[in-house]
Structures are given as C-alpha cells and as structure tokens.
C-alpha cells in the first residue's frame, strides 16, 4: 500500500455531517493544516465548503501528543513539574500552579504569603505574555503585520523578567510544591515596576492601531457569534465565555493563591462575536497589569517556600553545616516525598479558561494519575459551531480568536 492510500484509509472514519446541496452545487472538502501558519500550531481542519461558505469543520488533533500525562506518572511529584509545564507552552506558570496546587492540597501544605504573591505576580506576567502572543499572531492573521513586532517587543521584556527571576525564559520550573524556588533577585522589582508603568500605554497603542482599523473591525464585528448558552453546553470557559457576557472567572469565583486580596475587574463582552473576544482579552492586559502592580507593592516579607523539610528541599547553605539537612536533601532528591492517598481536582483560571489538574495519589512518591483539563482542548470544540455558515476567511479569524495552544490540546 502506498503512503497516500494509507493516509486516505486513516481518514475513512472521519464522517462529514454536511448534506449534499443538489445538482447545481457541489460541496468541496478542503484540508487545512496540520502545517499552516493560520492554525497556530499543528492543528488540522477538514472543512466542507459550499463556495466560500463553511458548512462543517472537523478538527483533527493529536499531532503533538507526547504522552505527558503518562510520563508524569513515571516521575516523582517534584520531578513531574517540568513535564507538566510543557503542556500548554504559553502558560507554563499556570500548568505548574495547577499541578503544585493539587499536590499541596493532597499534602495539606500551607503556602507562605510571600510565595503566594510571587506566584500571582508571575502568573499575571505570564497571562500578559500569553495574550501578547495571541494578539500579535491574531493580528498577523488579519493582515496587521506590525502588531506582531510590537507585541513581541513587550513579550521579550516579560521573558527577560522570567529569565531574571528563574534563569529560564520559558518552562521556568519556578513554582515548587510548597512555594517558589527562589526569592526574587535584586533589581527585579524595579524592572517589573518599569514594565507595569509602561504596559498600559503600550496596550493603549495596540488599541489605537487596531480599534480604528476599518478592515479589522469589519472582519471581527458580528462574525462567528455564539451565544452564552451554547458555550456553556460546550463547557467553554475563559475569555471566550466572558466575551458572551458571562462574568465567570475562577480568580473571583473561587479565589486560590490569595487572589481575593487583589482588586481587579473581570472584562465581559456583550454578544460574543469575534470583536468581543478581541476586546475582552485586550482589556485583560490592563487588569493583569493592575494585579502585578498590587502584588509587587504589597509583597509581604517572609519565606518564599514552606518550611516542611519532608517536602521542601533544604536551603543550599544548610547542606554544608547540617547533617539532617543533608539527609533530607538526599531523601528528597533520590526518593522524593510521599503524598497521602487521595484524589484532588485543582482548577485555576489560565489565560484560556479553566485549567484543572486532577491528581490521584496512591501513597507512593509518584502520582498514580495526572490529568490536565486543558482549556484549549475543550474550547476547540466550539470552533465548529462558531464558524458554521460563515465565510472561510472568518474561519481563520475565529481560530485566531479561539486561541487554542496545540501543546495544551494534545498534551
């Protein structure tokens, strides 16, 4: 069997729901992706078109499935953090937070306030970073090329901050079970402050560039609207749901990690079209900046990681003087810590919606099951009802506004 016929054979089970349209027309089945810049990753869409109108799409995923959930089962809890971070590669702090939060709940570990503030600070920087990538690439899809450079300029600033606090630009492994690995370095606060002061002006500039752009507006306004009820049925969360007017944000609804101490608003849209999706995320840039400002200026003094030596690595300097610290260090690095039996589902508000980490512990030092409810994976299902009976050009715009990260979809 040739490679081509084998490929077709694998597609046999993909059924298209669109009906035939009579004698004068015929439906065209068009393959988009998996390697196409507009799919924002390795997403493949089989689109059924009637002329230029999309009648049905079938997303085919799994091209970057790397079995991270299975891999995490083979690792000790603290060694699973780096693999878990690599799921949704634009929101690594959130992945780490969901996993660490679940493990901390199972352990019953108390997190010091400074660690919580540092976590919030980094998560909100990450949210801005993720939204900037979304804004830049989406605008690129809609023909606004210069936006990409402006957004990536600010993203670079954030990545520099991540590098400063943890040594890594992406997949930082900054969050640990119990807190964060290190206190922020000297000079970090000033740089974050400079960024916070700068960011609202930058966001204003993005708005100036895009908001009055006739082409952009006509491509976004009233395109691919989906009402809140359908979105809730599809289990969609995050900016997509908020764009349809549902003010659902886990940071407000069930505050975790000390979010109840921060003053911020939840931007919501009105009708749930692509324009609202764009506006909601853009408005979140300002709100996240506000949270970072509060976290930075209200940063409490104290330890940045819990003081439980059975779970948390001892400080480096103690290894040279304390035998006990050395033993703890050795045990933690070789065997890892054991987590009492139980199950936990820890949901947080990631840039794309509810990111829930389910961890089952069987009492050993490795998790018996790790599952990530990734918002991209669930939200991707909403694309088909959104783009049904709209133009194929709007399909590209909608896909950009849904903002799926394929690393998170396929895990």
């Amino acid at each position: 069997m040739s490679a081509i016929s084998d490929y077709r054979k694998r597609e046999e089970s993909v059924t298209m729901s669109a009906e035939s349209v009579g004698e004068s027309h015929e439906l065209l089945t068009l393959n988009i992706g998996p390697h196409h810049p507009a799919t924002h990753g390795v997403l493949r869409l089989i689109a059924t078109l009637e002329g230029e109108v999309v009648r049905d799409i079938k997303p085919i995923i799994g091209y970057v499935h790397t079995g991270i959930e299975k891999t995490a089962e083979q690792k000790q809890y603290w060694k699973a953090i780096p693999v878990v971070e690599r799921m949704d590669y634009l929101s690594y702090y959130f992945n780490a937070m969901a996993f660490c939060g679940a493990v901390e709940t199972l352990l019953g570990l108390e997190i010091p306030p400074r660690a919580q503030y540092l976590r919030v600070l980094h998560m909100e920087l990450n949210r801005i970073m993720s939204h900037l990538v979304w804004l830049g690439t989406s605008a690129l899809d809609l023909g606004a090329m210069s936006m990409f450079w402006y957004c990536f300029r600010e993203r670079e600033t954030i990545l520099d901050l991540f590098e400063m606090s943890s040594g890594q630009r992406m997949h930082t492994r900054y969050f640990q079970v119990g807190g964060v690995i290190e206190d922020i370095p000297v000079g970090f606060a000033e740089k974050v402050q400079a960024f916070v002061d700068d960011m609202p002006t930058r966001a204003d500039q993005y708005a100036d560039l895009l908001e009055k752009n006739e082409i952009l507006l006509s491509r976004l306004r009233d395109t691919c609207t989906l009402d809140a009820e359908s979105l809730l049925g599809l289990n969609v969360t995050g900016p997509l749901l908020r764009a349809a007017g549902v003010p659902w944000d886990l940071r407000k609804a069930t505050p975790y990690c000390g979010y109840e101490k921060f003053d911020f608003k939840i931007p919501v849209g009105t009708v749930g079209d692509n324009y609202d999706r764009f506006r909601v995320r853009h408005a979140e840039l300002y709100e996240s900046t506000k949270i970072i400002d509060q976290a930075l200026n209200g940063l409490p003094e104290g330890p940045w990681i819990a003081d439980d030596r059975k779970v948390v690595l001892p400080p480096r300097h103690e290894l040279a003087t304390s035998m006990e610290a050395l033993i703890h260090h050795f045990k933690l690095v070789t065997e890892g810590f054991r987590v009492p039996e139980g199950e936990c589902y820890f949901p947080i508000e990631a840039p794309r919606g509810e990111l829930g980490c389910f961890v089952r512990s069987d009492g050993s030092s490795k998790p018996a099951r790790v599952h990530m409810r990734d918002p991209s994976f669930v939200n991707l299902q909403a694309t088909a009802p959104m783009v049904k009976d709209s133009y194929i050009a709007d399909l590209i715009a909608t896909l950009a506004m849904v903002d799926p990260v394929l690393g998170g979809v396929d895990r």
Partner: protein
Amino acid sequence: MPDQAGLEAIAQELRAADASSVLGTTFDRGRAEVQIDPAKNVAVIELLREKGFTFLASLHGVDYYPEEPRLGVVYELLDMTAIDRISVKARVSIDDPKIATVTKIWPGADFPERELYDMFGVVFEGHDDLRRILMPEDYEGFPQRRDFPVGGEPVLFTYNETDQYGKDR
C-alpha cells in the same frame, strides 16, 4: 464545595430517586465525591443538573489497577450560581468498559469522552463519533492504563520505519 453534610444530603436525594444509584460518598480534603452505579450515570447527572450543577468542568479517567472495577470515569460538575463543585465517579470493569454518553446533555463532552476512549478504552454508548483522538487511528492498546508499559514501543527512525508501524508504507 458542599461540606460533608451537604454531600450526604445530595446523596440522600439521589438515593430517594433511585436507591441503587449511589454506591457511596467520600469527603476528603474539601473534595466532595459521589460514587455511582455506571448504569445510572445519565439519570444521576440529570438529577444533579436540576439541582444546579449545570456545568461539566472536566471529564477524565483513572485506572485503579489492580483494584476491580478498574476504570474510573470522573465527572467534575460545577454549579456556577452557588459556586459549588461535586465529583461524580462511575467505575467500570476492564472486561466490559461501557458507560452511557453525556454528549446529549453537554455537546462539549465529545472530546473528553473520545480522549477517555482513546486512553483507557472506555466505550461511551450513544456517542456519535467515538474514535481515537490523540493517538493515531491504527494504534493498538490504551496507553493510559497502568499496565501499559512506558517505552514498550520502538521509536520510528529511517532504519526501522519499515519494520513496525510503517511496514505497509
């Protein structure tokens, strides 16, 4: 989360509707869970939906190897008005892993159910399009099961691409 008493009250109500539907309850570290009979998952979920748990936050699988029934199907339900969560768990055996679909209630359960089928081999009866989602279509086995080995599959390189999975190419 409902507290211990709240969870018992919900379980009582479910039992009142159908005495055999609830197999047990667990309240552990703030997480309320109801274990149910897999044959009655749709009825239980419909009842919980009427009580306000209208949003399916997550649907995932667990393998309790070597305990039987091995496979757990977990529904994380969310009440967006009262801001409450409850987990519903149905356990199915490895020999006959069948459970009714909830895609009729939530169309968004489509992908998670396909993932569960793909990874654990749980068959969702009534699902319109139950096929593998993340693994290749011609893949054999269910990789997230605990007895599925890691590294049991050779990595495909040019020199061995005709030996294993690509032999018909």
